[in-house]
């Protein structure tokens, strides 16, 4: 079926599958992607089983459907940016033509709005704003949530700190940052055009900081690559595509989602102000944790830069964008500004919790072998059977429920981190994979077969997120 045929009367799932089945998105046998920004594994086989008729929920940000949807959405958004390989385009002209070509563009344009509704409509249920909005209310709310973020722990960095293998955990954390770190400010660039007064100029000041004032060596993506290089990690865009978690993907996509639609401009202004305000203390914490692990061997220029400049960006966005927009445009826009702050806080939590959960699980796989032995798998239910070969495309995925992997034949490596040693599974080995945990399997014998048994009930379903912490709670009393 050609892309044109797929468009006529096809469901969202069918259109997405047609897109993912394109030659650019099948993946290859390597765990890391080659220096080719147009190729990224969209795991069409796993995608085919995804349900795109039931929208995502805010309570299950790491579900398989969420991972699949956000990989696609991120690819759609990036196709609206300019991606060129550092080594030159000469050997990749064919992929360039396909990636930006008419067939995929038609599929993207026919699917992107529907996929955004699928992915982000849950925010309307998760967050709401009521009551009269004033600049005073906005500023008070903003200061409250920023103070909470500045004083509260980062679950992801806490997980890095607590890991047995802190180096691997730290690398996994860096990879989640690489998703944005190597294409930084691309979403923001969409909101620089037009004419909206001094607030536009304030936003542009931040943008030009991100872009190193036109000096490539000072560009934030350049100094992020230095961080990767100091860890002997790949620096090309999406080398670690297979290890981006659903939560970080959703967080990154959220800013593209807001900035693609200028009706959401005020929400974007709220969200970017929150992000800029919490980045600085976040990077101060990251410097502390990473210095503790790596000493002077890691290049933290990127973190130092953000710990410094984001203090200014936090102030500029608060005073010259967020509050200035509220003053200039009146109470009608305040609820949208508040909503943007609240949503950014929520999706930032997805990044943190998903990354923390992946670190904790991948750092403790021996225990999950034991848990698998005691897990109750569905009796009489036919397990999924995965047949692997060393040259088969390597892809990662999550599952919506806990499963036990059982090697029925041959041997395979379970890969759950970008830089850590894989977990070798021999015939008869079992390992519990909780819902929402990212993993891939790679055969190390000419053929290997893995059985996937669902576990009931779910031990760590992605919906079972911890309750949101409350701050400033007044004393309770009966009356």
């Amino acid at each position: 079926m050609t892309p044109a045929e797929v468009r006529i009367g096809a469901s969202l799932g069918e259109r997405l599958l047609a897109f993912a089945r394109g030659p650019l998105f099948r993946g290859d046998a390597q765990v890391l992607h080659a220096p080719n920004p147009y190729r990224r594994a969209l795991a069409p086989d796993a995608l085919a089983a995804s349900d795109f008729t039931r929208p995502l929920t805010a309570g299950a940000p790491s579900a398989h459907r969420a991972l699949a949807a956000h990989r696609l959405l991120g690819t759609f958004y990036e196709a609206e940016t300019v991606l060129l390989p550092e080594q030159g385009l000469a050997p990749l002209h064919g992929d360039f033509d396909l990636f930006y070509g008419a067939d995929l563009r038609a599929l993207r344009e026919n699917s992107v709005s529907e996929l955004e509704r699928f992915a982000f409509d849950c925010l309307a249920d998760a967050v709401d704003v009521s009551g009269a909005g004033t600049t005073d209310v906005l500023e008070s709310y903003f200061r409250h949530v920023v103070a909470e973020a500045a004083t509260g722990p980062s679950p992801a960095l806490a997980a890095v700190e607590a890991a047995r293998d802190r180096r691997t955990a730290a690398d996994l954390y860096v990879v989640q940052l690489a998703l944005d770190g190597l294409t930084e400010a691309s979403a923001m660039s969409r909101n620089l055009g037009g004419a909206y007064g001094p607030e536009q100029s304030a936003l542009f000041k931040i943008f030009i900081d991100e872009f190193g004032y036109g000096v490539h060596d000072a560009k934030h993506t350049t100094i992020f690559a230095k961080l990767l290089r100091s860890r002997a990690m790949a620096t090309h865009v999406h080398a670690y595509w297979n290890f981006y978690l659903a939560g970080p993907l959703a967080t990154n996509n959220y800013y593209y989602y807001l900035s693609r639609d200028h009706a959401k401009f005020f929400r974007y202004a709220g969200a970017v102000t929150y992000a800029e305000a919490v980045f600085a203390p976040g990077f101060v914490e990251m410097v502390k944790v990473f210095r503790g692990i790596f000493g002077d061997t890691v290049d933290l220029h990127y973190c130092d830069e953000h710990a410094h400049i984001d203090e200014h960006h936090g102030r500029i966005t608060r005073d010259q964008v967020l509050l200035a927009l509220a003053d200039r445009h009146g109470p009608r826009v305040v609820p949208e500004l508040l909503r943007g702050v609240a949503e950014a806080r929520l999706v930032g939590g997805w990044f943190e919790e998903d990354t923390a959960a992946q670190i904790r699980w991948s750092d403790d796989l021996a225990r999950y072998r034991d848990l698998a032995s005691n897990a109750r798998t569905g009796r009489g239910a036919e397990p999924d059977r995965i047949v692997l070969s060393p040259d088969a495309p390597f892809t990662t995925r999550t599952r919506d429920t806990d499963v036990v992997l059982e090697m029925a034949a041959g041997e395979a490596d379970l890969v759950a981190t970008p830089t850590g040693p894989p977990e070798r599974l021999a015939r008869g080995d079992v390992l519990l994979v909780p819902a929402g945990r990212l993993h891939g399997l790679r055969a190390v014998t000419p053929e290997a077969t893995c059985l996937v048994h669902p576990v009931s009930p779910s031990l760590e379903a992605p919906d079972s997120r911890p309750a949101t912490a409350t701050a400033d709670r007044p004393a309770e009393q009966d009356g």
Partner: protein
Amino acid sequence: MARVIVIDLSRHNTVYVGHDRYFVLHAGGPPLLVRDHCPHRGGPLSLARPTPDGRRLSCPWHGTKVGVSAVRRGCLPMVRSGDEAVVLLPDGTEPVSVLRKEVLANLPAETGPAC
């Protein structure tokens, strides 16, 4: 600056600010923190019942019908994320407390004739 309090909507539905009482009203759309005060003589609107059309609350004191839209216009600023609600109170020094009380206004509309 406004005062900020955080309430857990799964546990609390009433806020006292000094002598003023507010309750969480579910009247279609997002939950609202509204003043528990009938504009007629100050009756407890939290103990009102919705009229059959769901558009008004029938005050338990004198049967005054208070429009939900008017109640909504006077609600306190609140940002909800999941069960957590951040409430922005006007600046002041009155003591604040939160608790759970019976709220009849969130029950289904009365089926009998409206009084």
